[in-house]
């Protein structure tokens, strides 16, 4: 008599566990943020993004028109503000020219080809931003063909946005500074009048649009509203890029160093146009 052998449920559990384990291993490899895209991925991403971009054009046109009308109102208000500040422009211009010539002389004196604040710009438009990765990354419409490379810094008119994490032929992915999982600590300096204190950006709060700056060891008074800019140290960010303004100063858990809460200069919910920059010395 033939008896059909029953499938043991224990095997099923083992199979499920093994498949799940393999899946987790694969995912932990592919979810590494700094991995390079493979060639097929680049091709599919380029062509897919191209199609999405074309279809988004009419919607973006309407969005742009609405934005323009809002900006017109804003420009009028700015104009009135600038009109008040006009008087001090000549003085600032003279100071700027003076500083430029001083930097030039010092560079000649020290035989330097580049300094930390030297940078070259490439302008780009954000064409794709997934709702699930809103504060993580955006896609811009410039890629390898325009000379963009992994690690280049991306800014907008307000301040630093992030760095390029993946590059394909015609598009690039920008890892935003608002990425809560920001592992690359960024060196910044906070203005304290005539001097600066130095620290590291260690995190970002999406609710308040603020950065946390840690490791401020110097016991100098940091005033609310002090400007926070990049130092140029670490090789990734050129110096003098605006990060934001200090909104609160506290101390760390051990009361050893100061921790500054910095209101970001960039509103990460409204980024449309960006500039990619590289240091003049980068190859």
């Amino acid at each position, binding site marked *: 008599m033939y008896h059909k052998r029953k499938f043991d449920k224990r095997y099923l559990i083992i199979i499920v566990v093994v498949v799940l384990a393999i899946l987790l291993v694969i995912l932990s490899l592919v979810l590494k943020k700094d991995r390079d895209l493979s060639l097929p991925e680049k091709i599919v991403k380029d062509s*897919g993004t191209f199609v*999405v971009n074309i*279809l988004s054009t009419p919607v973006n046109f309407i*969005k742009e028109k609405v934005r323009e009308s809002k900006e017109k109102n804003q420009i009028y208000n700015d104009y009135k503000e600038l009109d008040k500040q006009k008087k001090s422009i000549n003085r600032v211009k003279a100071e700027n020219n003076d500083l430029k010539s001083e930097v030039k002389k010092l560079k000649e004196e020290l035989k330097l080809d580049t300094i930390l604040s030297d940078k070259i710009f490439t302008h780009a438009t954000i064409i794709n931003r997934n709702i*699930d990765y809103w504060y993580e990354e955006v896609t811009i419409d410039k890629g390898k063909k325009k000379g963009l490379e992994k690690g280049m810094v991306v800014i907008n008119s307000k301040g630093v946005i992030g760095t390029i994490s*993946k590059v394909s032929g015609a598009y690039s992915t920008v890892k935003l500074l608002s990425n809560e*999982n920001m592992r690359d600590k960024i060196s910044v300096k906070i203005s304290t009048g005539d001097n600066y204190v130095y620290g590291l950006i260690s995190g970002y709060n999406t609710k308040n649009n603020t950065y946390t700056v840690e490791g401020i060891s110097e016991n100098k008074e940091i005033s609310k509203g002090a400007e926070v800019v990049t130092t140029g140290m670490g090789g990734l960010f050129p110096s003098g890029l605006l990060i934001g303004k200090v909104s609160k100063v506290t101390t760390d858990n051990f009361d050893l160093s100061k921790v500054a809460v910095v209101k970001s200069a960039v509103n990460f919910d409204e980024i449309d146009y960006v500039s990619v920059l590289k240091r003049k010395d980068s190859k």
Partner: protein
Amino acid sequence: MIPIVLIVSFLLDSIVSNFISINSLLNPLFTIMALIIVFPYFISHKSKKNYLITCFVTGICYDLIYTDTLVLHGFLFLLIGYIIGKLNLVLSNNYVNVAIMGLIVIIVYRLVMYAFLLVTANISFDIFTVIKSIYSSLILNMLYVSLVFLITNKISDKLKIRRAN
């Protein structure tokens, strides 16, 4: 019908997210909603296997174009396809039931995705982030799935396209 619904929803996912604020209660997940809509069209041809393959391929395309997290959405969409199959065994196809399926699928998608990201990508977030991501996706997507169900029903009746009930 199947490719049109999938492609249009896939593209709308990106287009809509461009002009809806992240902090609003209208986060689009149209591609996932499209998987609910297309299920009866596969089943009318007795091809559940093809449906699951379509879910997986759609997920891979989603990964390649929108997220760069290759295979994550492939497997998530496959799981969602399986769940939609099971839900269709107990729920008949009508406007209310597709909205209920949409609700269940959104909850499962968000929970599983965050669980995967937590385990594999070492991303830190609290339970409130997950809850917020769920309730902020409900209104728009449940409306979308009901609306697309209505439109596809009308077209299918007019063109006599077979679908399971």
